[in-house]
């Protein structure tokens, strides 16, 4: 697969919280009985007074975070992506988004690569649910380095924000220098290319890089864009991709409805650009339990299918 060094983005989240906790005395962390998995336990150990175990009561956790934010705190609330969004949608809508509170929801275990736990734990609609809320900023970081930086952006910029990472270890794509100028809503070009663009987010950025390498061997030049911010979406970059290359592939571990692919399609249509677009994602179905790699293969979400789709775009 890859010879890159691996690091779990969840650990990067925990580390970032500990660093930020030192810098920002108003930063508080809430978790719903999953602190060992979300890695908020790292903050809990360092700053026990500023860590709030909320038990298996996610709705209360979100509204409580909003109450804390109303007193000037910077609350990070964490749990798995399924429970951090769908289960508490109304709480986020009213108390966080509509109320425009400075609440940061950081979710882990997003997507099908959660694997064996099955549909109950495979969140494929969170980006859509959060993206549709006014005032909400939405992130899906791709590796541990970027995750850490995005946690900093969340803590140090005001407003309701949501971020999701996967469960699994992830290859390190960036070093600190690559990432130092990262901005909310500004996509990163990971690989340059002129024939087509693969716009990927989160766990799909690494397979996109691998697809780029495979395509190169066939003399196909694929640009790889890391769309770490799903909202506000980087329209300028999308328009450039649409205008300067022969087509776009979007890739996300999420439903093809409402997430990155939808945001890219909307941008293309809104700007009346004629181009080819293939949206890779889960095609409006519930998946199943299984090994992450097997699931990604079964649902056509890996570099192999990115390569196939790239060739399709160029053939048409």
């Amino acid at each position: 697969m890859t010879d890159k060094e691996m690091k779990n983005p969840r650990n990067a989240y925990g580390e970032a919280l500990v660093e930020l906790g030192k810098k920002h005395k108003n930063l508080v962390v809430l978790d719903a009985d999953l602190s060992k998995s979300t890695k908020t336990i790292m903050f809990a150990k360092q700053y026990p007074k500023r860590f709030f175990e909320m038990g298996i009561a996610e709705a209360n956790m979100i509204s409580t975070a909003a109450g804390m934010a109303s007193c000037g705190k910077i609350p990070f609330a964490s749990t798995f992506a399924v429970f951090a969004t769908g289960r508490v949608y109304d709480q986020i809508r009213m108390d966080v988004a509509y109320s425009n509170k400075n609440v940061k929801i950081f979710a882990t275990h997003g997507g099908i690569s959660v694997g064996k736990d099955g549909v109950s734990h495979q969140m494929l609609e969170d980006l859509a649910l959060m993206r549709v809320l006014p005032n909400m900023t939405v992130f899906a970081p791709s590796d541990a380095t970027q995750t850490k930086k995005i946690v900093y952006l969340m803590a140090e910029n005001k407003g309701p924000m949501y971020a999701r990472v996967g469960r699994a270890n992830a290859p390190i794509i960036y070093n600190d220098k690559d990432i130092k100028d990262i901005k909310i809503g500004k996509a990163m070009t990971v690989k340059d290319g002129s024939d087509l663009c693969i716009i990927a987010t989160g766990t799909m950025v690494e397979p996109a890089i691998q697809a780029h390498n495979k395509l190169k061997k066939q003399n196909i030049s694929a640009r790889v864009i890391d769309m770490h911010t799903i909202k506000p979406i980087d329209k300028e970059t999308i328009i450039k991709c649409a205008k300067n290359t022969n087509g776009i592939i979007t890739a996300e571990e999420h439903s093809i409805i409402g997430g990155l692919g939808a945001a890219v399609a909307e941008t293309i249509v809104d700007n009346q650009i004629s181009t080819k677009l293939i949206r890779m994602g889960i095609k409006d179905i519930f998946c199943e339990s299984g090994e992450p790699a097997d699931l990604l293969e079964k649902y056509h979400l890996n570099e192999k299918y990115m390569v196939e789709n790239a060739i399709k775009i160029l053939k048409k």
Partner: protein
Amino acid sequence: MKQLSKQEILKLELKAVQIRKHIIEMLYIAKSGHPGGSLSAVEALVAIYFAQMKHNPKRPDDPNRDRFILSKGHAAPALYATLAECGYFNTDLLKNLRQSGCMLQGHPACTCVPGVEASTGSLGHGLSFANGVALAGKLDKKNYQVYVLLGDGETGEGQIWEAAAVASHYKLNNITAMIDRNYLQIDGNTEDVLKLESVYERWKSFGWKVIEINGHDLEKIINALNQAKENKQKPTMIILNTVKGKGVSFMENNVDFHGVPPNEMERNIAIKELTAVEKQLEAQL
């Protein structure tokens, strides 16, 4: 805590009648909204805003202020009238309730109205929000008190019980919650819709201190609020036994006025009744 004089209580009662008149006028002009649950909550709001909370309408964002959260957001007219009477904004605005362009939304919105702490209207959130304010207060070693008013039907929401458990677990004695126990919700009597009794035992079993009183007796409400503040170990729940539609004869205990505004004739009768009480109270002052 000093006891209020008879004169002071009379003044508060007068304020309650004036707020009820505002509610009737607002809903009549808006041609929509919730009279029943607004009228039942008036004494609680008067006691909190005029005799209990430390708050400054000129500084609604004072970090040391006491907070009030109206979890039963459909009683927004009662809250708006109270805030206007306190001086958070001009009472003239009340007549624009629910109109496009007016800050007074159908349900409270914290980003729109000074003095509104939380955006409510979707039931079940307020106590959790209060938990957050109370936990932040403890962390910052501030001694503000957090007041929350829940509807009785509202406690059908599961989130209320999540919040009840958390407030108790963290010993949030800086929370004083109240339940507007008027026994009526949209589909009928609470005991027929989804049995709530024993409300007292439920909250007690969740580790709360529970006080049960007549929710229209201002003196009793103020005493209970004082008692709650002195409690050092637990959050307090005050069960306010109230009458839905209180103060307007034909609205009292009438579930049809949960979410239906008065028509012109009803409005005239209501204002006449309330003005008579107002005059009586003024005569005693």
